[in-house]
């Protein structure tokens, strides 16, 4: 037999090396800016976040989810038992039999990992990740046999020293990957960093079924955006390190699919290169479309743009959050991208293409098009809309948004007014007092202009009494609902799809059946993924007698129209246009009409060359289907004023 001390020594060495590596890694994260977290509460919450929240995402791929449970669970259990059995030499069947079982579970999981790696999909990284299943198998088999040999479960002298020697090599290899590699940046790093990332996540509200999508407020007297990796908060750096390179983000990213130079997985990996220092030469996944791998270089204190990533990469993002939604490690790509954009805009003054002009217009005229601020009501010159300034009080404040300047969006607005009037809703608008919500400015990185606009709007809103704000623009909806709170504006905000659906449910409007052909529904990112509203639009379509033919990517997996995050303004060229790809999705289900719930989506999808399905906003579909006579005549004045309104 081999010396008794060899195996314990190996395990202890591996554990020691892991500890040193882990400390080193922690120091790398600590180079980031401070952000308070609750240490104990976070660590206590971690197992639940892992078992429930993370697996909720992983479980979208059932096989992979079970594989991971078996492999990871088996490994953690084995490690916990290896220490008493092999380090302290406790020789009890109560320990060895569970240890044997744990290694068998891990082995089973590893077999599935191995099988997936034989023909890996393009989104998976290769390189060291190809080695991982073999390491997992080696670890589990070696420890199984070694435990068996060392135990009293077999007849005396069954083991041969040659066999033991071979197994020890296996153990060494397994320990090297699973413990040493975990601390020193190998593929297993994800387990260690991922666990801590879950504990100290920057948006803890996301766990337990919650939602947290608003950008974090920026102190305009402090640092403006992220220039170098060490400008990120420490727990953002930790988050980047948790990436398993599964490429789920890459698979859903519309910019990547359009051949624009963005790949969210590569972006996160480049951030890891930045925080650890070095180059991306070892990256073994898909590149940024059209860019070679191996050029990126950086360290925590070197500027990111034009070292690690190019500015075009950052400006390609539509902030659609598809990547965040899909990421099993709950990494926040959009936060990171907007942080870096903020530096480019506020410090360097380098917002590409129309960006500078749009921001300039917002500063000078409170709207992105640079239109006369006093012409906000021109679209409704014939509608006699009640103004908040006159009424002071209304049940519903109708937030018109900048759609008022665009002829196509005006049709949506007019349709919505028709519905409001048909349902006798007590509403009013702000008119010329309304300003842009600040959404675009903020996604373009200009938090200064965003805050000016937000503060102005909040001051205006505080003058009036209303129960809720309703808007047809999901971007304004999101900003009013989720981002004004940090500046003192707390409102009950509703998107028009939710509001109209409520009117239907309350019987305040009656609808005819829709007479067109096949209809599909496109979920706007800022309504769906940002605010979780998938149901009301569909209920509303059902109320019109429409059976929605769902596109392959719908609901939380909806593909962006390409219009978010200022992407049409910064306009980074790719091989395809995102809007074309989205209309192709609709063509695949043979839709004749694409129902949308956003003026920006309308503009993007209608920009696709004909022949293509018709693009109609929910408000337009409902307005067309209104049964006016059946309106309960609760107030006598409702009838005639309606008759005038029909355009």
């Amino acid at each position, binding site marked *: 037999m081999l010396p008794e001390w060899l195996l314990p020594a190996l395990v202890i060495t591996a554990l020691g090396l892991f500890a040193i590596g882990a400390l080193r890694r922690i120091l790398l994260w600590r180079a980031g800016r401070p952000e308070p977290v609750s240490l104990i509460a976070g660590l206590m919450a971690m197992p639940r976040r892992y078992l429930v929240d993370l697996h909720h995402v992983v479980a979208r791929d059932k096989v992979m989810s079970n594989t991971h449970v078996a492999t990871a669970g088996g490994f953690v259990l084995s490690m916990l038992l290896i220490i008493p059995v092999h380090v302290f030499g406790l020789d009890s069947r109560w320990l060895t039999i569970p240890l044997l079982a744990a290694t068998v579970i891990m082995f089973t999981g590893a077999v599935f990992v191995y099988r997936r790696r034989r023909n890996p999909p393009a989104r998976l990284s290769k390189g060291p990740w190809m080695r991982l299943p073999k390491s997992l198998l080696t670890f589990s088999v070696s420890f199984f046999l070694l435990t068996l040999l060392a135990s009293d479960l077999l007849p005396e002298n069954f083991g041969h020293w040659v066999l033991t020697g071979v197994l020890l090599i296996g153990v060494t290899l397994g320990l090297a990957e699973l413990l040493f590699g975990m601390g020193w940046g190998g593929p297993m790093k994800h387990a260690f960093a991922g666990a801590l990332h879950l504990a100290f996540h920057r948006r803890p509200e996301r766990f337990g079924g919650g939602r947290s999508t608003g950008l974090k407020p920026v102190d305009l007297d402090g640092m403006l955006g992220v220039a170098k990796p060490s400008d990120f908060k420490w727990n953002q750096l930790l988050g980047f390190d948790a990436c398993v390179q599964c490429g789920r983000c890459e698979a859903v990213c519309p910019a990547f699919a359009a051949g624009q130079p963005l790949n969210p997985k590569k972006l996160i990996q480049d951030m890891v290169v930045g925080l650890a220092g070095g180059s991306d030469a070892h990256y073994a996944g898909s590149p940024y479309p059209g860019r070679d791998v191996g050029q990126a270089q950086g360290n925590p204190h070197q500027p990111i743009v034009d070292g690690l990533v190019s500015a075009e990469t950052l400006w390609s993002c539509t902030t659609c959050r598809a990547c965040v939604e899909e990421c099993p490690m709950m990494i926040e790509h959009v936060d990171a991208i907007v942080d870096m954009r903020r530096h480019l805009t*506020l410090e360097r*003054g380098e917002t590409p293409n129309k960006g500078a002009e749009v921001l300039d217009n917002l500063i000078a*005229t409170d709207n992105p098009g640079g239109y*006369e*601020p006093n012409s906000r009501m021109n679209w409704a010159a014939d509608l006699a809309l009640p103004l908040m300034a006159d009424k002071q009080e209304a049940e519903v404040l109708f937030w018109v948004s900048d759609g008022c300047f665009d002829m196509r969006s005006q049709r949506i607005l007019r349709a919505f007014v028709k519905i409001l009037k048909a349902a006798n809703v007590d509403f009013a608008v702000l008119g010329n007092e309304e300003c842009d919500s600040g959404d675009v400015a903020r996604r373009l990185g200009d938090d200064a202009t965003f805050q000016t606009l937000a503060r102005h709007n909040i001051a205006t809103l505080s003058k009036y009494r209303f129960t809720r704000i309703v808007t047809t623009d999901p971007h304004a909806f999101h900003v009013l609902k989720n981002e004004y709170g940090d500046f003192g504006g707390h409102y009950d905000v509703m998107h028009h799809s939710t509001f109209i659906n409520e009117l239907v449910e309350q019987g305040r409007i009656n609808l005819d059946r829709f007479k067109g052909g096949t209809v599909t529904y496109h979920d706007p990112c800022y309504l769906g993924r940002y605010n979780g509203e998938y149901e009301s639009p569909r209920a509303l379509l059902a109320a019109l007698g429409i059976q929605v033919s769902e596109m392959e990517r719908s609901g939380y997996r909806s593909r962006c129209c390409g219009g978010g995050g200022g992407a049409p303004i910064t306009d980074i060229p790719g091989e395809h246009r995102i809007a074309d790809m989205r209309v192709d999705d609709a063509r695949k289900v043979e839709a004749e009409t694409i129902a949308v719930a956003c003026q920006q989506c309308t503009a993007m999808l209608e920009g696709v060359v004909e022949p293509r399905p018709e693009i109609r906003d929910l408000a337009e579909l409902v307005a067309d289907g209104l049964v006016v006579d059946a309106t309960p005549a609760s107030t006598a004045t409702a009838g005639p004023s309606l008759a005038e309104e029909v355009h």
Partner: protein
Amino acid sequence: MWPDSDLKVASLVSNGQHPKSGRSRRASQDARAVELALKMTGRAARVIHVGTGHRDSGLGQYLGMGLPEITLLNADENADAVPVLVDHLKGTDLDIVLTGIHAEQGEASGMVPYLLAEHLGWPLVSHIADIQKVEGGKAEVLQALPRGQRRLLRVPLPFIATVDNAAAEARQYAFGAARRGKLVDEVIDAPVDQARLEWESHPAKPRPKRLHVAKAKSAADRFKAATAKPQGQGGSVLRDGTDLEKATAIMDLLISEGVVR
């Protein structure tokens, strides 16, 4: 070439006004003058403002273009900017002074550069699009003419130039840079503009524009008619002859028009 660290270039800037909202901003031509100065001398570009400016006005936007500082010659609203500037410029060793063609608010007569040139005895070049190089005490200046034409002039230093809309557009201003830039106050003696005190001002009434009906046969003619700047009638073009002859011709014209008596 650029930036040339030996060159001393200053831009005079005024507070602009947005045509639609009336909000204070950097004036578009002055900002182009700053852009040109930044191109020529980098962060050594000097920028001067006469008035009661503060950083929330257009001045902040000039600073946001990356200027370390703006020299602020403190003068109240009734002051006459010309003597203030003349005093200040006399005490400097500038090579080139750039201005816009006229301000976006206030008097906006466009006279400041001319009056400065007269008092300082420097040549003035109007409507420039670019300064290409400075060599041996002379600058090669590209002057913008109607319909996209350009004329290359060689001008001895020091001189004043007004920057046309044909010059390179001003770069984006950045909030961070504006926050860092300084307004360096200089207390000066600012005489009151006596003449202006007596004036009354009213908001301008938009006057209806007379449409020019072009009788054109082809699309090309219509395009020409639509884009042409009105050209003076009569006159003559002197290409040959000595400088003296050309100057005499101009002087004769000025006398006959009653500009010079």
